[in-house]
Every structure is written in structure tokens, then in C-alpha cells.
């Protein structure tokens, strides 16, 4: 037994919801997380006990790909229309950032750029990398990969920023013919992208990072 024993080596299993440590039969096929005959429940909270999140790779890939597909119209299509007496202007996410920069708020422009562009792209790249490397059982940079996953979990929901900006401006800018703001379909795609990437990172099981061949301990 290594200095840092893992739950599976000790025949233990942690409840993902309440954290309770339970004993389980080593090698019990019912706990593989494949959804077949998973009928062992946590004695404390009733959640089905699984060694790993069920179908983690398949689910995460599916959600990530779906999120990526929606991310394209989210960026290409305008998210907001601003109309005034003599001018109609359709804004995309990126043109909104540019406008904010020009309006004299480079700091805020950087924040919006980070939340709307950098974070989603980082999520696609990070989760893609985590999926591929874990599926190959790679022992490469495990600690860094584990940290990357926690970063994705931590910052993921900040991407909703632009959705809230559009909603607030839509409700605020109501000056009949003088000035109006309307949401455009891009914002719907963007909102759904954020939700899907959050679901994707939730369905990835970080314990898979450590499940491959042991090379470092």
C-alpha cells in the first residue's frame, strides 16, 4: 500500500453529495458507474454510491461538443440591438467589448473579454485536454491538470456576465422612439453555452485524472 492510499485500494467509497466514507466490496461491478444495477445508496443521504461519476467521459464529451456548437452562433450572431432615432446598431459579444474599450473603460473591457471569450475558450481547451489525457491514462502533469479542473469549476459561471448585461440594458433602455435596446438570438445561444459548459465540467470526474498508470508515486 502506498503512502497515499486511494479509496478503491482500501475498499472505501466516498459519497459525492455528503462526503460520508462508506465501505464497499472491492471490485464490486455494481459500483463502476456504468449505470447498470447501481443500487447501493449512501446510508446518510440516500445518494447512489459510485466510485466514479457515471459515464463521465461520454457525458462530458457530449455536453462539451454541444456547448461548442452553440458557442459559434453565440459569437457570430449579434446579442443585442441598440436603436436610436437615426441609427440601428447590432452588437456581437466582441463588438460590445470594443465599444466598452472605446467608451473609456479598458479595465471593464478586459473583464468582459475575459468572462465572455477567455473563460469559455479556456473551458473548451481545458476540458478537452483533461478528457483526452485522462482517457489515455496519462501520468503527465497530474497536479497541474487537477488544478486546471478546479480553476474551470471556480470561474465557469462568471461567463454569464454578458447575459446579465443584455438583460439589464433591455429592461433599462426604454425610451420609445428615442432609444431602445432589444436582445437578439446570440444572447440565447450564449446563455445556453454557459449552462452547457457548466454541466460539462460538473460531469467530468477529476478522480479520473489519477486513475491511469501510476508513474509518480
Amino acid at each position, binding site marked *: 500500500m502506498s503512502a497515499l492510499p486511494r479509496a478503491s485500494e482500501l475498499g472505501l467509497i466516498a459519497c459525492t453529495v455528503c462526503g460520508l466514507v462508506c465501505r464497499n466490496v472491492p471490485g464490486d461491478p455494481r459500483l463502476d458507474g456504468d449505470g447498470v444495477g447501481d443500487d447501493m445508496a449512501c446510508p446518510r443521504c440516500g445518494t447512489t454510491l459510485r466510485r466514479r461519476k457515471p459515464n463521465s467521459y461520454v457525458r462530458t464529451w457530449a455536453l462539451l461538443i454541444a456547448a461548442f456548437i452553440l458557442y459559434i452562433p453565440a459569437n457570430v450572431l449579434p446579442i443585442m440591438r441598440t436603436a436610436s432615432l437615426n441609427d440601428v446598431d447590432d452588437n456581437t459579444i466582441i463588438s460590445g467589448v470594443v465599444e466598452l474599450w472605446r467608451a473609456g473603460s479598458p479595465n471593464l473591457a478586459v473583464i468582459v473579454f475575459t468572462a465572455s471569450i477567455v473563460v469559455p475558450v479556456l473551458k473548451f481547451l481545458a476540458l478537452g485536454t483533461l478528457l483526452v489525457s485522462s482517457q489515455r491514462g496519462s501520468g503527465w502533469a497530474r497536479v497541474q491538470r487537477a488544478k486546471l479542473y478546479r480553476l474551470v469549476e471556480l470561474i465557469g459561471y462568471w461567463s454569464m456576465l454578458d447575459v446579465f448585461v443584455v438583460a439589464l440594458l433591455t429592461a433599462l*433602455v426604454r425610451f420609445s422612439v428615442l432609444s431602445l435596446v432589444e436582445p437578439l438570438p446570440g444572447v440565447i445561444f450564449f446563455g445556453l453555452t454557459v449552462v452547457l459548459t457548466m454541466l460539462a465540467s460538473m460531469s467530468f470526474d477529476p478522480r479520473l485524472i*489519477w486513475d491511469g498508470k501510476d508513474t509518480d508515486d
Partner: protein
Amino acid sequence: MGMSSPEALLICEHCDTVYRRRTLARGDVARCARCEAELERYHALSVNAMLALILTAMIVFVQANMWPIVTLGLSGQQSSTTLWGMILAMWREQAQVVSVLVAATLFFFPLLKMLLLGWLLWFARAGRRAPGFVRLMVILHYLGPWTMSEVFVLGALVAIVKAHTYFDVTPDPGIYAYAALTLLITVFAGVDLRQLWDDVPEETA
């Protein structure tokens, strides 16, 4: 299968490493030696303090939702909105998906979270498990990442700066209430709610 002295062992949820639990002193954070994730941290907040925080947050939340967030002025006309004004506007403007997202992440989920916590802590204060404890704790766990009030505060700031180019902008009390709410959320963010499972034992349910 049975419980394996749950107080004695601790499993890192990020890499499955098993640890023997140790008592944490003030300011201590236990980290996983394998993946460096946080295992446990000392919580300075007593149940009473948490309950006080939650009750404060509820009051602030009601104000943040009742009061207008910001007022715009253009050629003598005024326009302001509340959170629900945003939700209804998005619904009317054919963005129902966004309307539901905003309502869920900024209103229903935060409200539900506070109500659940208030309920659970109220009973925990007397060392008892609230009626429905197990189910409510599970709901609380899944609610975790879906409350976004702090993101909204930043979003409101961005919207104000954007609107400032074309309109006279007056921040309203709602935005300050939201800022206060964010502060409370930040204080609460370090609390591991799972401690309630251990804090209030099952026997007294």
C-alpha cells in the same frame, strides 16, 4: 456494507485519496498531499453566526429585488428597472430562455438557498435536525453552483458604464443592496455546508 467510522476518515473528492481526519486549529486548511485540493478548513463561524448572516442576507435580498437597480435619463425622460423588470423584459422580447436563466440564477435559486439554509440552521441551533433535513441537504448540494448574484453585480457595473455614454445614469439603492449581498456571499463562501451532517447527529432527528 456499513459506515466506516465516518468521523475518522476523509476522502479527497478530487483524487480519491484517503486521510485520517485531524482536528483543525484556527486558520488551518487541510490540503490533499496528492492533488493539492482543499480537504477541509477550520470554520470560524458558529451556527449562530451563520444564521445571523443568512437572516441579514435575506433582508438584503428582499431589498435588492424590490428597489430599482439603476435609473437612466434621456431628454427629460426617466427609465429604471428592478430585477423582475429585467426578467419580464427578456420574456416579452422573445428571449424566454434568457428570462428563465436570469430568474433561476438571480432569484429562485438564491432565494431557495437562503430559505433552506435558514431552515436548517434554525434547527441546528438547538442541536436538532430540521424536518426534511436529508432531502434539503441534498438539494442544497445541487443548488451550489447555480446562484449568480455576484456575477450580476459586475454585470450591472458593465451595463452602467455602457449606458453612461448615451444617458444620464443614476445608481439606485438596489445596486447597493446587491453589492452588500455579494459581500455576504463572499463571507459565506468559505463555509463547507457539509459540516451540518456532522454537527447535528441523526439520533436526535
